[in-house]
């Protein structure tokens, strides 16, 4: 099976000058040339998909993804209409758009596709696709920038996108259409007088570009809010594109970065930057924000009668227990350990699994969700130790899913399970539900089983399983 991957990332400016007026200013011409260089690199990388995150397409109802296979119209900029019109006809990967939309919803995001005749593709996307993909050889997708989305939502958007890139085996290029400092001159200027609006904006832009040229994308992502306060006109509520792009790159800080051009466009900071996934020397992270796998959403505003305690089933499944349990550890990595990003982090110094000869020994697996650490079915008590109602069947299902993820990471499957020791904290209450889920899942596989009642588990969960499985062959 081919595995999809990101073969490159680009940051490109949004204004129409590079398409319509590159001859009027030397800086604009250099930007245009840099676009040309980026286009050549994308071609050379044999990319088969361009993914555009555009800051000039704001949305309110979640994120929107263009799914019209051939959007055509004539774009005129709201401010720079006197530079002329840009007719466009693009090649959109409709299937990818729909798959991404579904993947967003799976991860808790509000999302929809857009395929209407005459839909106005935004200026940033039009400029990017015109110059990065002039002959439409590479199919593209375009996603909006939600005005209310913050880091969690934007990060999850990138993860959902990469779910589809991997599942469909694509060689994708991620593009953020954005300005750095976005403060333009508020008066008409002669093109030859163009420069960055202020020294302070210029200094911030250069700092951002220094980080990017060192491949420190996640650092720029973590500075997003500061950058927004310093050099961004408050068009939207945050400087989001670097959150998305960093998420697309697994929040890495050791990419290979190169600034292909940095110029002013009517005062705004315009840069063409290439970030290659090849590792470079930097890579140090001074601090980390929480990683997020699923979006838990806003309060359910459409149903006014619901109280905070009476949240939807989905939300209750994802009830977080971040402050309710022991410290989490990175899985240890010795000998033939098998560890999975897709499984919850350990609560001590041990790996997810270890191979011994033909057998795979798994550490005890509970229902906690990787990333969010949420407990499907809800925790058994709150952080004060007050007992809560929980769903043993949802918890048992989640345990089996986590076991599946670890075995798949090792190259095997749930079919390989040989022996299971199950631990329940409340045999009287939970055995029946646990046993039903067992019958539907592992029961079909047919491992031997022992079920024990114990007083407690280290996190507020009701069930854990200790698994021995056949190790997949090493060929």
């Amino acid at each position, binding site marked *: 099976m081919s595995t999809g991957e990101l073969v490159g990332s680009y940051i490109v400016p949004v204004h129409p000058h590079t398409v319509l007026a590159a001859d009027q200013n030397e800086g604009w011409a250099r930007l245009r040339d840099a676009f040309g260089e980026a286009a050549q690199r994308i071609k050379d990388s044999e990319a088969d998909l361009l993914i555009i995150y555009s800051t000039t397409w704001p949305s309110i109802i979640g994120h929107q993804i263009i799914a019209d296979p051939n959007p055509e119209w004539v774009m005129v900029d*709201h401010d720079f*209409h006197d530079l002329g019109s840009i007719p466009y006809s693009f090649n959109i990967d409709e299937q990818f758009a729909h798959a991404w939309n579904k993947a967003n919803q799976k991860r808790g995001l509000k999302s*929809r596709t857009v395929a*209407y*005749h005459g*839909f*106005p593709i935004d200026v940033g996307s039009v400029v990017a696709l015109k110059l990065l993909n002039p002959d439409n050889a590479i199919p593209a997708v375009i996603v909006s920038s939600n005005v209310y989305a913050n880091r969690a939502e934007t990060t999850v958007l990138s993860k959902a996108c990469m779910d589809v890139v991997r599942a469909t085996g694509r060689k994708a290029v991620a593009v953020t259409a954005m300005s750095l400092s976005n403060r333009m001159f508020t008066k*008409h200027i002669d093109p030859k007088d163009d420069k960055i609006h202020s020294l302070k904006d210029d200094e911030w832009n250069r700092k951002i570009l220094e980080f990017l040229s060192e491949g420190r994308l996640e650092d720029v992502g973590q500075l997003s809010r500061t950058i927004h306060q310093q050099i961004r006109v408050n068009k939207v509520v945050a400087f989001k594109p670097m959150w998305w792009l960093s998420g697309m790159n697994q929040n890495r800080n050791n990419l290979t970065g190169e600034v292909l051009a940095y110029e002013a466009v009517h005062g705004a900071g315009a840069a063409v930057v290439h970030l290659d996934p090849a590792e470079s020397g930097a890579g140090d992270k001074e601090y980390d924000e929480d990683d997020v796998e699923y979006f838990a959403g*806003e309060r359910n505003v459409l149903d006014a009668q619901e109280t905070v305690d009476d949240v939807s089933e989905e939300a209750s499944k994802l009830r977080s227990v971040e402050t309710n349990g022991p410290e989490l550890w990175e899985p240890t990595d010795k000998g033939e350990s098998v560890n999975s990003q897709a499984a919850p982090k350990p609560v001590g110094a041990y790996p997810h699994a270890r191979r011994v000869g033909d057998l795979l020994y798994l550490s005890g697996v509970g229902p906690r969700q990787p990333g969010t650490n949420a407990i499907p079915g809800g925790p058994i008590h709150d952080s004060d130790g007050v007992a809560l109602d929980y769903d043993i069947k949802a918890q048992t299902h989640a345990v089996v899913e986590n076991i599946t993820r670890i075995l798949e990471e090792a190259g095997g499957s749930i079919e390989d399970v040989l022996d299971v020791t199950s631990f329940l904290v409340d045999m009287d209450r939970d055995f029946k539900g646990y046993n039903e889920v067992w019958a539907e899942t592992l029961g079909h596989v047919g491992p031997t089983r022992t079920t024990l009642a114990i007083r407690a588990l280290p996190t507020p969960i009701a069930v854990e399983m200790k698994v021995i499985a056949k190790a997949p062959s090493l060929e």
Partner: protein
Amino acid sequence: MGLPMSKGEIVAGCLAPHPPHLVYAENPEQNEPTAEGGWEQLRWGYERLRASLADVEYDAIVLLSPHWQTYIGTHFLGLPSFKSLSVDPVFPNLFRYHYDLNIDVELSRQIHDRAHEAGLAVKMMENPDFRVDYGTITTGHMFNPAWDKPLVVVSSNRSRDYYSVEVMQEMMMELGRVTREAILASGKKVVVLASNSLSHRHFTTESAIPEDMSKEHITSHAMHLWDMRMIEYFRSGQAQRILDEMPEFTEQAIAESDGGGLSWLLSTLDIPKYPGILHGYGTIIGTGNAIVEWPERLHTEASE
């Protein structure tokens, strides 16, 4: 100033919000999607506004929409007509409208020129491929579905984003003053429309049937309180207090007055001390919207 006979006049100034949901719910033939009604309180409000002005003669509509956003000064549509399809980039499921509208280019240019003389950055928009924004079209349609009056369409300068609400308001007060002067000097009778919502915090979800009114309500109590406070000022002739509280209102209610329309409108009306007529109030995906009219007869009575 010219002779009284040739003097132009603002026959009414109105706050006339533009969520595309209103056009969607009306099911006009120009709009592609169809609805089972919805947002009736506001649509009845527009009906009352239209009835209120049914017997008033006027020549043109001057309209400022926050969805033609310009960062380099204020722009004016500068060609005699525009005809195309307007698709709302945010609610394309609700608004795909085939428009065909006429511009009073002469009056546009007169306002443009006076604004330029007053030192404001201005530009005429003369690119025939330009697509008119959905805010202009929604307010234009709801106010005058027959489209039988020429428009002057003014862009929303985003000076609030660049500087502050205070600077935005200063610029919009100036633009309002020169708009009024240009209208009076033109000899034309004109209706002035500010196209904006009041509190402007949206839901980020939409129900399966967008017009399901059992899901419609204000996003929060704080937003409601701000909207009611503004409406109280509208109805009691306290425009100056609206202007005084504009910074707090715009920031705390995330109000769409950030686009400058409301400040500009009150300035074109000489900051009315007489009550405005509230024709309707309602929420649209959580945002607060009021339809308010300040008729010329009350202006005249107040100045006598």
